[in-house]
């Protein structure tokens, strides 16, 4: 779920319940303005979400230290995802992995396609601050794993929000360098897009937001479709 506007907690709990009941396999909560605004995710609502959710959920947004992460994990989050703070201080990944184990540490990468290749962007939650992080996506994927990332979520910015399909070529390039679970993000518009990400880019999971929020794809229908395509999913 990506939140571009502030929502009251009641809405988040309702959404969490709805997706749980529809059969989502995991929920990711992005507080995308947390890093640009210099704050961290509110642990109050993490705890309220944890009380109703019986599936894994990951929390992202402004986690800058072991203490920030510990608060959220203690509140009931399953994993934490770091993005901009890890770009500013990569040792954060090592510290989190050492304290909580790699399986708790997701590294989110916002990647833009440029004439120089795939480039990492930071502060993407704020259009006025979103900027090239001066890193090559493929080498950052390798470094993040060496530092202890237990999962990579690759958000392909060029395809994000436009529903024209995941960036299969970029996902394939990352897959070749990624031995931890890889999650595709950005571009899902139809059930076929999900099937393509699993089949052609061999990703471990596919993340989507707008098609689920708007109701244009219902999760039970999507799962039925993927099963018909012989792609293994939890029914």
């Amino acid at each position, binding site marked *: 779920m990506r939140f571009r506007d502030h929502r009251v907690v009641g809405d988040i709990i309702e959404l969490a319940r709805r997706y*749980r009941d529809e059969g989502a*396999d995991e929920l990711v909560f992005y507080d995308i303005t947390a890093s640009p605004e210099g704050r961290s995710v509110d642990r109050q609502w993490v*705890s309220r979400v*944890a*009380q109703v959710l*019986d*599936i*894994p959920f990951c929390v992202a947004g402004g986690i800058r230290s072991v203490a920030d*992460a*510990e608060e959220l*994990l*203690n*509140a*009931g*989050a*399953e994993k934490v995802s770091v993005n901009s703070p890890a770009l500013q201080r990569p040792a954060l990944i090592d510290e989190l992995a050492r*304290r*909580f*184990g*790699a*399986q*708790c540490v997701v590294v989110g990468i916002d990647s833009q396609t440029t004439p120089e290749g795939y480039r990492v962007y930071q502060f993407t939650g704020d259009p006025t601050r979103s900027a090239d992080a001066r890193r090559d996506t493929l080498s950052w994927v390798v470094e993040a794993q060496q530092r202890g990332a*237990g*999962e990579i979520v690759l958000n392909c910015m060029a395809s994000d929000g436009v529903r024209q399909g995941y960036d299969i070529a970029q996902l394939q390039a990352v897959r070749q360098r*990624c*031995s*931890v*679970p*890889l999650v595709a993000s950005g571009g899902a518009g139809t059930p076929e897009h999900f099937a393509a990400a699993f089949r052609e880019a061999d990703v*471990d*999971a596919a993340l989507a937001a707008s098609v689920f929020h708007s109701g244009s794809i219902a999760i039970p229908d999507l799962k039925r479709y993927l099963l018909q395509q012989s792609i293994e999913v*939890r*029914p």
Partner: protein
Amino acid sequence: MSDIVIIDSGGANLASLQFALQRLGAQATVSSDAATISAARRVLLPGVGAAADAMARLRSHDLIECIRALRQPLLGICLGMQLLYQHSDEGDTDCLGIVPGHVARIPEHGLPIPQMGWNVCVTLRDDPLLRGIGARDYVYFVHSYAAPVGPHTLASVDYGAALTAVVRRDNFCGVQFHPERSAVVGARLLQNFLEL
């Protein structure tokens, strides 16, 4: 004196287990006190993090002998299950030695490690702990280390190789997956455990 005690093994994330029990109408206390643990009707040993840290924590609270001596049902979850074995390659750690066998890194078979996701279990031996849980029921795994299938394995999970998913020796039970994050199937397992 609390009925259900979750042993504080030092990992974060005890809240999600507590909430899962709450959803079943069971109130659990988190404790690292030997007397409290010994007096409980049910004991849960969760664990997130590294084996060596968790064992050091149990030792510093004098809980090793306390846990070994328990006669009431205990459920180890994830790392908590691995701690029941004799030894873990993770940090070359001597564990509780309740279940014979050694925990090792998941064998490389070209699959991502950690195993992080939903998978099904293969029941090898019927047990009240697995009542109502079948071959099509997915549960949620997150782990880099695993126990091989052994004489006490009740159910295995196929992840390149067959690994122990559920183990039981007498009153000591363990699950490699996270029942607190495994939707209705996980709730079923926890309910079964509470009813043992």
